[in-house]
């Protein structure tokens, strides 16, 4: 299996960027898959400020409520047919929706699709 980040590596990466400590909230990009773009006026990316994956989704939800409804359950859990990746890693392998974000991170929403 290809290598990727682990929780410890991710924390190390955060700690290695003390410059970010001075910035209150990282600027990140949410990448919207084709299957969900109808819920955000066709946008492919949404730029926003968020310190965690959950905060990024909540910020997006302020503008596009139905987008977040397709990603999260009513009680705020990730739906079992949607994945979120940061730095190529499934957030499940880090701190889930509480995974911290760095300035410049790209947060990919990857829902299951079935066409063929």
């Amino acid at each position, binding site marked *: *299996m*290809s*290598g*990727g*980040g682990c929780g410890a590596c991710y924390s190390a990466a955060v700690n290695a960027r003390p410059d970010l400590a001075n910035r209150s909230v990282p600027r990140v990009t949410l990448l919207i*898959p*084709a*299957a969900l773009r109808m819920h955000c006026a066709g946008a*492919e990316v949404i730029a926003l400020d968020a310190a965690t994956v959950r905060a990024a989704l909540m910020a997006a939800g302020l503008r596009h409520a139905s987008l977040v409804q*397709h990603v999260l359950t009513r009680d705020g859990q990730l*739906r*079992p*047919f*949607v*994945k979120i*990746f940061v730095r*190529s*890693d*499934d957030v*499940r*392998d880090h701190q889930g929706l509480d995974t911290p974000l760095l300035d410049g991170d790209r947060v*990919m929403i*990857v*829902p*299951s*699709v*079935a*066409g*063929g």
Partner: protein
Amino acid sequence: MKARDRRLAQLRVAIPEIAPAQALALLQRGAVLVDVREHGEIAQGLADGAVALARDSLELCIEDLAPDPAQPLLVICGSGVRSLFAAHSLRELGYQDVRSVAGGFNRWKDEGLPFHLPKLLDADARLRYARQIILPEVGEAGQQKLLDARVLLVGAGGLGAPAALYLAAAGIGTLGLVDHDLVERSNLNRQVIHTDDRVGEPKVESARRALLALNPAVRVQTHPVRLAPENVEDIFSGYDVIVDGCDNFATHYLANDACVRLGLPCVHGSIFRYDAQISVFWPAAPGGGPCYRCLYAEPPPPELAPSCNEAGVLGVVPGVVGLLEATEALKLVLGVGRPLVGRLLCYDALNLSFHELNVRPDPACACCGAGKTFPGYGKYGQSCNAAI
């Protein structure tokens, strides 16, 4: 004395000769035994552990086999004459430890040393697959693996059509097709295995005709049924690799679950408009790997599934994805490269971008999690069952 005999006398002084039994002992200690006889002679028998490398391609190919000039090489032919000439050529290439097997394969066999009758490609196959046989990762041995392989395509549609054509062209020996649909004219913008005059025919029959027209040597097995819990294991158990090119969640999950249960690799492809996902789900892989449910534990309910009926598709997108799936299937059969196990490739055709994402096995996976027993096939529903 003839010039030939004079030359042989010189070579016998220059090249060490060893008895077949000594060669066998050296082979077992790491030497490479190279048989330089012609194709037809090899068909009569090949010493166990020997590599067939015909005299006319010896100098061109030996470095693929033995890149280290310090590698001990043993050369064998029919009677021990041609091997002297071949050994001399290898010396001139820079190999330092080259010996000729005295008496050749004839003596090897007479002395009761182990040999086998190798499966060899016939003349048509050597011509048909010539361009891939010359790839070091394929060779005649790899081509034989392809001919021996059994690959099942789940779906003979947008993904299965291009995959099946290229797998047949590559010489996969047995290709299975499972699909219960009939060819429709609206399929033809992407399902390039079918033709306008076959609209209305069962897809598996239409595909079978196309595959046999391309490569009559392929054995095509058709399964004109809807894949279901009741038949999936009977069908899958006859194959080595499953290529999932279906168009609905229910079948993706069923194919995954059956592959996990049977230990088979499942080459997955799925698309939505210009986006696609490709991976190889294979918990039984050497080193392990995730299954589809490790990635997506459950399918979406119909009300949250992407609306297939409204989606549409540009035919080239499933074409690209189907060929990526075919590539992974060929790699798995050949045992070369790094299969897409534990990685999800996301393809965005509009922006022409590929993202590779890490997918790890989910310890809590209901299907393949450690210590979990197979939960049974259950009900799969029909969330968004329309072909796009």
